[in-house]
């Protein structure tokens, strides 16, 4: 297993280099002179030229990228055009908030989706199945930012149960986590249902029933474990979408995570900060994919044997 993890970690390096290169090249296409942005409108052409030289902006873009990467591996993401502070300071200060929100959202979505998907499959073609799948379809089709606004309207402005913004205390996390998790709950419930439907028609399930195993054990011990592989894949894939969704959710609820920081930085044309945020998101996404790959081994012994 450790060998597999080490292999996957090594294979992540070229991907991450590629990700940073692409993001760097995209960001370097941004119009406007960074030296002008930093010095302001009053700067003389001489001052601008001096700063450009100092920042290495006259070098070819690949040389600039090389410098950025060598800084990045030492934990240096460059200086914010806006505050002049190192970008990593603000990004690392806000990252735990995004992680906290995403973790709670994933937990809520998995806790709700698994029983919903399993019950819908077990009670296929009943009213419960119909209603739960309609809820799932609505969940998939609902934009996160609209759901966020509706939840704020209902539970914050009308009922006053939860705050509509901020990140203080558990209560402030409820609405953003539901907003972020609902869409994923719907996707996970749908895939769990279809995966369960396939598994419960297998011969070994019929055998288990014929042996007199209780229905509860058939479902939880025999069917569910085998139906979980596609579910885990979807959970992993959904986390990528969730990171994108967190940008919207954090903006709706003024949640102080890196999604909101990124939007604020875009509005201020603070390119190093935007670059740092996108790289942080992409690195997190790659690490999550690695964790999902490792999880497969725990669920499916056939995959575990391939690791050896």
């Amino acid at each position, binding site marked *: 297993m450790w060998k597999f993890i080490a292999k996957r970690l090594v294979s992540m390096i070229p991907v991450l280099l590629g990700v940073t290169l692409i993001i760097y090249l995209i960001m370097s296409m941004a119009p406007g002179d960074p030296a002008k942005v930093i010095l302001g409108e009053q700067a003389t052409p001489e001052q601008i030229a001096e700063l450009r030289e100092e920042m290495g902006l006259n070098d070819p873009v690949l040389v600039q990228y090389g410098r950025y990467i060598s800084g990045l591996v030492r934990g240096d993401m460059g200086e914010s055009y806006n505050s002049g502070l190192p970008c990593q300071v603000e990004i690392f200060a806000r990252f735990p908030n995004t992680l906290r929100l995403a973790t709670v959202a994933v937990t809520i979505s998995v806790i709700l989706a698994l029983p919903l998907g399993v019950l819908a499959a077990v009670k296929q073609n009943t009213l419960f199945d119909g209603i739960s799948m309609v809820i799932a379809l609505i969940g998939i089709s609902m934009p996160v930012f609209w759901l966020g606004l509706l939840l704020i309207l209902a539970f914050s402005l009308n009922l006053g149960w939860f705050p509509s913004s901020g990140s203080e205390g558990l209560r402030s996390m409820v609405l953003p986590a539901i907003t972020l998790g609902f869409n994923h709950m719907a996707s996970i419930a749908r895939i769990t249902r279809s995966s369960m439907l396939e598994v419960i028609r297998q011969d070994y399930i019929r055998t288990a029933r014929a042996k007199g195993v209780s229905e509860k054990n058939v479902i939880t011990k025999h069917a569910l474990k085998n139906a979980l592989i596609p579910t885990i894949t979807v959970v992993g894939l959904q986390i990528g979408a969730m990171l994108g969704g967190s940008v919207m959710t954090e903006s709706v609820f003024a949640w102080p995570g890196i999604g909101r920081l990124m939007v604020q930085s*875009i509005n201020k044309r603070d390119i190093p900060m935007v670059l740092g945020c996108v790289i942080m998101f992409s690195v997190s996404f790659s690490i999550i994919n690695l964790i999902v790959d490792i999880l497969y081994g725990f669920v499916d012994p056939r995959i575990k044997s391939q690791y050896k």
Partner: protein
Amino acid sequence: MSENTKNVNAAEIAAKYKKKSQTADIFRRLAKNKTAMIGLIVVILLLILALSADLLFDFEIDITKQNISDRLQAPSSDHIFGTDEMGRDIFKRVCYGAKYSLLISFVAATISLAIGLVFGAIAGYYGGWADMIIMRFMDVLLAIPGTLLAIAIVASLGTSIPNLIIALSVSGIPGFSRIVRSSVLTVRDAEYIEAAKAIGANDRIIIFGHVLPNGMAPLIVQSTLRIASVILTTAGLSFLGLGVPAPHPEWGAMLSNARSYIRDYSYMALFPGLAIMTTILCLNLLGDGLRDALDPRLK
């Protein structure tokens, strides 16, 4: 008429008949699925609305002209969805907004499909170095969450409709490439491809005339779902102020504008959101229906 010509004509007729009957068979199966048909009908209606938006409404008078005396009117017989803070009719703006959401997503999805098709076909058909270089590049693009990649591109290039289309197209290319590549790999060594090679067909004819038409099923489904996903991303970017610029009535931009008035004028946020949800829902229903109709196991 010689025997040979007769045989060729018979083969052509048989191929034509088979092709027609396969398409008819798929449509027959799709037509049996009521929810998919509802999805299809609504999507067609929305497309007609999007294409005829400029004929139905005057952009200056109906969509952007301010009418302060009518501002913030609740839904009524005069304004069935109410009016916004500038006195503009929300119903007309939501209808006109279909033009932006649908056309941007159709164009972006088509560009992604076209580029993904070429890359995926080259990678799958030629294999070797071409496959390795293209697919590693696609792996890198896939390692960046789609919405974030689109945000990064718009943030860099600036907010405009063409830049938005570029951003949305780029983020869709890896998904299509992978599907096309796997479709190509499954049919690349089939006998009819060997036969085409034997009669001297060049690579272009083999790829676009024989390989791709036989791997279209997953692409059709992916295209439908991609359009839905692009509509969501477009609305999301506009909501963040990075999508369609004002005063164009894109649904996400309308929702963003409604945020400030949500406490007292919640209808302003209700209708654009419903429009997005209905469109995505119908595209998802259609995509699910197409997947079932194209799945030979469910015949």
